[in-house]
């Protein structure tokens, strides 16, 4: 039996100076072992049920990717770097490949570009469905969450068919993609899936996005204005919810996006609800993009660059230089800065995850004054992905 006073006595005997309690507020550890945070921790100073001060405590998922990438061959890094963003691992693959493509001066074949675009859009849809699930779980509408996760499985099956893995696809490689599209059947299946999810969007609207209580829960919390968002480097849907019409797919077009027709949702409120609705609309747009791509059909040609240097992959070298590539991920602007010194391994790879901007300073500031019940909602509405903060 250990009583409290014994603990204190023991600590004193060990020569520990116990600082006096801060009695006006209390400390609350939000995460990492908590349902609302994925191995991410926020230390909250609370007053009643209001947050007085929030300190983001990242680093639970740090594995030193940028260091490890410097010791692996150029190609191998694909298998490593995609672990930075677990919900949509195709994004790190794509940006790294695009940067290496630029360094190599490769003109990626059209078919490969088309496949990359399809994969990226599928990743976006699956990521948004995953996010919908998270939002549903955090708000307490488990129904929406369960459906979203179940419908996402259809995309997972398609990914599996295409790439050979469920989550870590390791599919987009410098110079193209690893495999060709399996068959026309796969394209038909993708079309069916797009139709199916499009059909089910109404259900999500009914139970989640048009639910009265969802609106009550989300409106007016975590409000950002335009200037704040730009200063803090907020990107992606979070920025669009503050009234900035910005999308990397439009501003810095890559792959097939210049040829596609889609709309950018922009809302001015900048609160959690606006962020959620922007994401909701983008999900619809992504399905629309996929439809367009399928209508276009895959261009004929090779699915990767034909280059003699690709014969001996472990000793594959990239000319010295640097390149930056970024794409619009569901969380925001995902960028890779790759420096080569002409060797068989990258000299420096820096992955710019959007969450590092959203998850530290923005979060700390948005949480001040929020209720404890709002914390998971704000966290979810920012769409953070802790591994890309920690890298």
């Amino acid at each position, binding site marked *: 039996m250990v009583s409290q006073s014994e603990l204190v006595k023991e600590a004193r005997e060990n020569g520990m100076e116990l600082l006096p309690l801060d009695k006006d507020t209390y400390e609350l550890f939000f995460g990492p072992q908590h349902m609302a945070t994925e191995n991410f921790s926020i230390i909250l100073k609370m007053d009643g049920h209001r947050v007085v001060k929030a300190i983001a405590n990242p680093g639970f998922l740090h594995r030193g990717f940028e260091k490890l990438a410097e010791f692996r*061959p150029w190609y191998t890094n694909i298998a490593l770097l995609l672990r930075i963003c677990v919900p949509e691992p195709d994004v790190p693959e794509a940006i790294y490949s695009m940067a290496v493509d630029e360094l190599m001066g490769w003109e990626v074949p059209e078919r490969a570009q088309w496949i990359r675009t399809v994969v990226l859009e599928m990743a976006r849809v699956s990521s948004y469905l995953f996010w919908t699930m998270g939002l549903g779980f955090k708000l307490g509408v488990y129904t929406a969450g369960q459906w979203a996760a179940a419908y996402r499985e259809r995309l997972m099956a398609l990914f599996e068919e295409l790439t050979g893995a469920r989550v870590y696809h390791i599919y987009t490689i410098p110079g193209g993609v690893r495999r060709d599209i399996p068959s026309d059947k796969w394209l038909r299946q993708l079309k069916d899936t797009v139709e199916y999810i499009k059909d089910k969007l109404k259900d999500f609207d009914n139970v989640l996005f048009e639910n009265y209580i969802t609106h009550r829960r989300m409106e007016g919390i975590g409000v950002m204005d335009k200037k704040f968002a730009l200063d803090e480097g907020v990107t992606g849907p979070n920025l669009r919810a503050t009234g*900035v019409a910005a999308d990397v797919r439009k501003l810095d077009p890559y792959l097939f996006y210049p040829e596609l027709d889609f709309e950018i949702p*922009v809302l001015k409120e900048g609160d959690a609800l606006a962020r959620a609705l922007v994401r909701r609309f983008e999900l619809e747009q992504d399905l629309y993009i996929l439809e367009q791509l399928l209508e276009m059909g895959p261009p004929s040609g090779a699915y990767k660059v034909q280059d003699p240097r690709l014969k001996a992959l472990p000793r594959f070298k990239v000319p010295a230089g640097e390149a930056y590539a970024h794409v619009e991920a569901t969380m925001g602007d995902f960028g890779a800065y790759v420096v080569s010194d002409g060797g068989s391994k990258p000299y420096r790879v820096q992955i710019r995850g959007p969450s590092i901007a959203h998850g530290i300073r923005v979060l700390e500031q948005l949480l001040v004054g929020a209720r404890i019940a709002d914390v998971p909602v704000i966290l979810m509405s920012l769409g953070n992905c802790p591994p890309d903060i920690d890298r």
Partner: protein
Amino acid sequence: MIMGMKIKVAPEEEVKKRPSFIKPWMSLKYLFKKPVTIKIPYEPTQIAENYRGFHTLNWKTCIGCNMCGQICPARAIEMTWIEGEKRPHPKVDYGRCTFCQFCVDVCPTNALGFVSNYMLTTVWKDEELELFDWVPLPEEKVKKFTDYRHPLAKIEKLEDGKVRYVLRDGETVEFKILGYGLKPPKLQQKKEEKKA
């Protein structure tokens, strides 16, 4: 805001949703619909044909070039010298392997391959964890197990470096491991002797 660029912005009323008390009730319609659950283990799952599962190795065509070992991001592949084989063969450690199958891609003779089997579950005991570290067997021996499980039931370590792979249907493969590394073990021994 953006200079010289036209961005198609969605009309705000399309993005915004109107809150409702009535619409959520619509979702009750799924109460009497069939669940989407796959009832594993009573219902088999269909997974992709070329799912990146366990490796296979054609021992005849493997030339022991160690390309696989070099490309492996996890350094899961170790070249193993087996008695009776002229060239070393890769030994794959599934405690390291990330199933990226880059090794399969780079294999110049297509000796390394993979099957869609992916299930390997063991008790955390040293003798059972041996299963995680094996020299892949030829495709025909692995592929006959259609329940997506790892083909081996257990790996027995016999005396003086001999190992016996017991497949799940009782078939056994026995061979003797001479050593590891790129250089033949005899050379290595000689080197050590020299050093000594």
